[in-house]
């Protein structure tokens, strides 16, 4: 389940931050992506919500540490949706 999420996230990150060099890895975080600031973070989450048909709470959006944590959150939400 995890690999396809990373693949989708790479596409979303490239799209949102307009940079084709980005590759989603567990330790990738906002500091290492140009444009991933507080506004970029919201744009990223809204795009993930749209593509995965899930929804995040504001504290979840505001407290993101890295892509690894993001993937865990997506996985959890997707499994709740499919159950």
């Amino acid at each position: 389940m995890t690999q396809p999420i990373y693949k989708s996230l790479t596409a979303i990150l490239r799209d949102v931050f307009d940079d084709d060099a980005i590759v989603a890895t567990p330790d990738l975080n906002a500091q290492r992506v140009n444009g991933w600031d507080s506004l970029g973070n919201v744009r990223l989450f809204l795009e993930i919500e749209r593509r995965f048909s899930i929804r995040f709470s504001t504290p979840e959006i505001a407290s993101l540490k890295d892509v690894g944590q993001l993937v865990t959150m997506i996985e959890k939400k997707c499994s709740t949706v499919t159950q």
Partner: protein
Amino acid sequence: MSFNSFPSILIFLPIAVTGYWLLSAGVSHRFASYWLLTCSVVFYLVGGGPWSLLISASSILLDYILVRVIIESAPENHRVRLTAFIIGVLANIACLGYFKYTNFFLHTANSVLGTHLEAAHIIIPLGISFFVFQKIALLADAWSRQIQSLRLTEYLLFNFFFPKVIAGPIVHYNELVPQFETHRVSCPARELAIGLCLFSLGLFKKCVISDGVGVFAPAAFDFAGEGYPPLLTAWTSILAYTLQIYFDFSGYSDMALGTARMLGVRLPMNFNSPYKAVSIVDFWNRWHISLTRFLTAYSYTPLVVNLSRRRLLEGKPVLEGKGSALSAIWTLIAIPSVLTMALSGLWHGPAWTFVAWGVLHGIYLTVNQAWRILRPRFWPNNLVYERVMGPVGWLLTFLAVSVSFVFFRAPSLESAFSVLGGLFGLNGAQAPVLRTLQMTGADDLGLSVTLRAYWEAYGFSTVCIVGLLTVVVMMPNSLEILSRYQPALDFTEESLPPLTSKPTSIGRALLQGGAPLSYATAVVMALLFSAGFLALTGSSRFLYGQF
């Protein structure tokens, strides 16, 4: 009591730190915690007085009950949790509103409505702006189940912990309390040495540099009015203030981090070379970091998320990179940025000058964010853009920040606009004394008289400003100097923004990856401490301590 005072440095700190380590090693960690709490309460009592302590303690104890209700209520008692959460947040806002803003509202009502309401005699509790925000963050963390348990001693210590009680950093419960609970420091002497290094750097910055350059700041503001200040006076004055507040807050932050570290506790990073920033967004990730984090989490992000969702429901466009519509930029960038920064301004002080400062930064952030999103449309080459905009972005950011400080420093909006007029040359170029000299035929008096007059008016201040600006931009900061000892909770070299992630070449050559705790470092730090101590006046307060 402030860090930069004789009683604090000579009596309070040595007793608090020595007592803590002795109790921690000789009796038990629990007793050491009680000692730390007692010291913190004494520090607060001496600094703010009994009334201040009574109000803060009442508010803190009310939140203790509410947070426990939120944590201990079963998930099915959603209504109970929600009620406790809302009461807690409202009570904190009401507390801040009453003590800090009552007279501001009365004054505004009098001038707008023409009423004659008398100002109330209200004592503002010490550090209220900081501990109210901290408790709101605590309630939010409890609400989102990030806090599992709450013990009274640690909770009180979290609120009153003296290294951060005057002016932050604004910390989260989970950042600080685990350090109190599982305090197992292997080498107290090392912690003490690192803490003393930070403290010495901070004392020097505050007492020698900030207070020193600060003497040039009032020139433009004290007599601002019709036709004053002239261009050169306005610029020397505002640049001096820009440096004064930088070294004041940087010095305070170092001393706060240093004092905590003397007790083996790491506080989060609050200040990270903000004048090296190459954009306004970058600036706010480096200046008062803990406040930016709070406002981003509890004001900016909820605003952008909710406004975006509402637009999606209404079928309107949201932000879509370089193809974003102007209506989306207005609603999703301008409104949240200006509202959040106006709130930030008001938080700094109950005056319209602070609101104006906040709104100006909101406008700066809007322009910066809109440009970042739309720029690839007009300027697609990222590499060339970054090469050009590195220096240009730095200059624009520094000038924008300096100009904004006019509102931060001015006693009223009228004098702020006079100083702004001076900055843009509307009041002539030189000080009146030089103009008079010119009119009365300075040429006849000879070049040396004219040059001396210029030197006395602007020369020394300009040399100080240029020198300090070079230090600010080229030198590594305190965190970088001590980077190998993790001087702040979340400080690693990798955590710095990419464009300026490495210390400058001079800094790197000078330090080669951070200063070791060697004899040479000890001598340098002792010199800095001595210079700072000798410059102590006993009357200088932290600018940020007034918020």
